[in-house]
């Protein structure tokens, strides 16, 4: 708090009105630590060739987590990561404040979508998930980001995770149900067929940072149905901008 104040003093000694506003804001935010907040949230797909399926944005309490690195995925998370279905995760989040599917479908590469979220007391943590297509069980993940009490705009990037529930065979089979092998679809219509499968096993059954897809350069054969010049990515894969009003 001392640093905050001294910053405020430095910058406001010159402009009185700003100083008054700032000091009021500082007072307000100390008393607003656990109260309801109005948020504007924008999610941007930073990738060049990966689509996001319907996005789930949730403000929840400290006891709730949609996923956790090193833990096994819940069946609800598995449904989202393998098939893009956020309904079970949403049902699980009974007391959370949610924005579901703000893009009304797929979020294409480089595109952004926005949602407003009114949080209620105690829902001080923000999480965001969406499946990445074409992948077997890859998803963008933000886990329990503490929503700042201070009004302002906050921007950060998030990484790609692997749910650890399905072998990354990279074969586009239409399989999106939990336990069904293969990738549901390649929305960019830029993938191949006839792949023999990159791997048939998933040795790490815990949620982990996705190692990336490998793809190949043969759209009618090879190991993978993915195109290695289109469907790879590097982290980060999404930008999230939160305005606390």
């Amino acid at each position, binding site marked *: 708090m001392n640093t905050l*104040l001294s910053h*405020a*003093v430095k*910058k*406001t*000694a*010159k402009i*009185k009105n700003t*100083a*008054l506003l700032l*000091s009021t804001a500082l*007072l307000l935010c100390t008393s607003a630590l656990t109260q309801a907040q109005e948020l504007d949230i924008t999610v*941007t797909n*930073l*990738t*060049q*060739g990966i689509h996001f399926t319907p996005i789930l944005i949730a403000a929840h309490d400290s006891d709730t987590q949609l996923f956790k690195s090193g833990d096994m995925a819940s069946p609800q998370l598995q449904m989202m990561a393998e098939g893009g279905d956020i309904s079970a995760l949403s049902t699980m989040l009974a007391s959370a404040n949610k924005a579901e599917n703000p893009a009304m479908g797929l979020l294409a*590469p*480089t*595109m*952004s979508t926005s949602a407003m979220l009114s949080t209620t007391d105690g829902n001080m943590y923000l999480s965001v998930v969406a499946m990445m297509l074409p992948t077997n069980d890859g998803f963008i993940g933000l886990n329990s980001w503490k929503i700042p009490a201070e009004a302002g705009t906050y921007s950060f990037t998030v990484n790609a995770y692997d749910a650890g529930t399905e072998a990354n065979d990279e074969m586009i089979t239409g399989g999106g149900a939990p336990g069904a092998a293969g990738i549901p679809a390649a929305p960019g219509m830029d993938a191949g067929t006839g792949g023999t499968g990159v791997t048939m096993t998933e040795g790490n059954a815990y949620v982990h940072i996705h190692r990336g897809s*490998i*793809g*190949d*350069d043969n759209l009618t054969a090879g190991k993978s149905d993915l195109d*290695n*010049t*289109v*469907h*790879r*990515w*590097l*982290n*980060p*894969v999404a*930008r999230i901008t939160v305005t606390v009003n």
Partner: protein
Amino acid sequence: MISINKILAFTALSTLVLSACGGSSSSSKVMVPETPDPMFTQSYQVTVTNLTYAQPMSPIALVLHNEGQLWTMGEMASVALENLAESGDNSDVLADSMVLSGQGGAGLLMPAMSEVLNVSYTFTDVNNAPMKLSLATMLVNTNDAFTGINALAVNNLAVGESISFTTSSYDSGTEKNSELMATIPGPAGGGTGEGFNAERDDIDKVAMHSGVVSVDDGLMGSALTQAHRFDNPTLAVMVTRTE
């Protein structure tokens, strides 16, 4: 809160005192010679380090500006940026109309090497102080990958203060990532690889780069090897306001 109020009161007082002084001098009849407009200069020193294994960076474009940005996620690259990202030529970016003052790098910035660049802008109206600093450079052993910083707000940086960060890599979306020898302007292209080509045969939107595949990782015909692969971040940058 008390300290803020004290300072406010002090500021208000000193404003009163100053305006009183001003009032008395302007009411006197003594002729004062006209003084020239005051000049202000802002200078920044930027240290850039290439973090990659084998991706030389093209001569850096470093610019101060108030308006615009060098690129926007999801939008078409400007021709100036396309030229930088496909050929490594920074001249169009440095000559862009939004640029108040620009500085080009001395030459290729090789892997693991650092370069220090200085950029200054002198102005008479305080309202024209440069607000933003941008920087761009191509990863030359690629089709159209670049990295840099985009419209960093520097207006609150005090003299002597620094900001440090690392940057990720972007794809200008203007050239397909074929990795063919004839399309790579860097050393991996054998010195004859094409640079700028006005044709846009990729998604024509700026996105983050997905990395190079290379012949060693399954792209037939690629002039790149495992050595040219990179991960984020690719550049370390430190910006210090020096004046």
